């Protein structure tokens, strides 16, 4: 390499951007699934389940993502499990996202007014039916803006996966810069690329909020 920024460099960065998206999707899907379980566990009728899930959330939220990534990559290697950078980054981000989404969603579920639970109970719906047909549809509406807001955080946080050698957008930028020594130009490109990924999500969230606005005014009747 060396010389000036050319099409090959840009393609390399483009590939990194794709991996950033890929890693974000893995983190969101994995974290979303585990986070949903965490959210339900946090409001479980069983005290043991509530406490265990709360401990998990506190542990993860009290640990920097960077440390979780190192633990995932080097820690697992130390106990004899050789994991690829992708697997380590995907698993670490999943655990991280699950703790936050679980907590965000628990709050959203609990912010559905209590009389809604009672009305559903009064109609003889089972706990699962109350959750699936009455509470969650309303909680999802409440959860959309903070969830998408957090998705933006995740996309940006995947840049930390570069420290375990995963070549996503940030890491590919570093590699290109190592050969070109044009940090400002390269990191500007990277910044714009991250923005281009995150901004549509924010717009999407706003649109979703407007479209799902129906019924919101009645969420908390007098």
């Amino acid at each position, binding site marked *: 390499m060396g010389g000036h920024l050319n099409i090959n460099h840009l393609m390399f960065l483009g590939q990194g951007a794709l991996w950033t998206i890929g890693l974000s999707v893995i983190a969101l899907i994995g974290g979303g699934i585990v986070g949903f379980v965490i959210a339900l566990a946090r409001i479980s009728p069983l005290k043991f389940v509530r406490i265990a899930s709360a401990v998990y959330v506190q542990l993860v939220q009290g640990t920097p993502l960077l440390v979780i990534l190192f633990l995932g990559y080097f820690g697992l290697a130390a106990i004899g499990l050789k994991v690829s950078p992708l697997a380590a980054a995907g698993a670490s981000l999943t655990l991280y996202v699950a703790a936050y989404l679980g907590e965000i969603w628990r709050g959203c579920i609990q912010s559905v007014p209590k*009389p*809604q639970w*009672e*009305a*559903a*109970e*009064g*109609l*003889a*719906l*089972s706990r699962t*039916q109350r959750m699936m*047909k*009455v509470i969650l*549809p*309303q909680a999802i*509406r409440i959860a959309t803006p903070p969830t998408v807001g957090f998705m933006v955080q995740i996309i940006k946080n995947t840049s930390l996966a570069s420290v375990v050698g995963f070549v996503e957008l940030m890491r590919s930028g570093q590699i290109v810069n190592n050969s070109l020594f044009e940090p400002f130009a390269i990191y500007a490109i990277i910044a714009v690329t991250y923005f281009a990924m995150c901004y549509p999500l924010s717009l999407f969230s706003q649109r979703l909020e407007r479209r799902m606005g*129906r*019924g*919101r*005014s*009645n*969420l908390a*009747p*007098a």
Partner: protein
Amino acid sequence: MQQNLSSTEPIVSLHNVQKSFGPLRVLDGVSFTVARGEVLALIGRSGSGKSTALRCIDRFEKVDGGEIVVCGHRVDRPDVDLRALRQDVGIVFQSYNLFPHLTIEQNITLAPCAVKGMAASQAKDLARKVLAQVGLEEKLHAYPEQLSGGQQQRAAIARSLAMQPKVMLFDEVTSALDPELTAEVLKVIEQLAADGMTMVMVTHEMGFAKGIADRIVFMHRGKVHETGPASILTSPTTPELTQFVGTGNLKS
């Protein structure tokens, strides 16, 4: 848990029911019964325990002592089958509590489909029928927020009716409504009473209670202080009820 009741057995019976919230004794030995087809009005000041007594019938509150039997279910026992109980008991709340993300039709068909396994087409017919009963056929596809308070409360009554309960509980269902809307809701309840529905209602509408109730239970400090036919509202025997009906509550 017997389901077949003889017609003489009360639908609801409370015997010496005790309930405390922390140090506060809300129900202190409450007893009353409601016969099939009877309309019972629970009245009393705020904090007298009337709403708590009503909520105990549907086990939204667990009692500390005493015995509650509702349609053959021993509600005071921890092993009571709540879903069976709540199929027999309909409850309507002060704040309507329609599900805001569902249309009125979906609000009504949800429980018959999910709980009783009713077919969707049958449930839709049922929704039309119960909405006609409360005079809201044209609101089938509206969302709750598009309805006035009175209409929402009537829709909530229809939703409850769709489960074909044996007894209906009304918890201050007109307290959030202005007089005009109150009147349209009370008309619906009057019609239900005329159709022979067994009802227990907590109400502040003394004129209404007088007109519709077969029996009045006046609660005071967690106890049934005075009980009798609607005429006790005009000729109370205890000073507390005298004072209560004398404070301007008795609208004609």
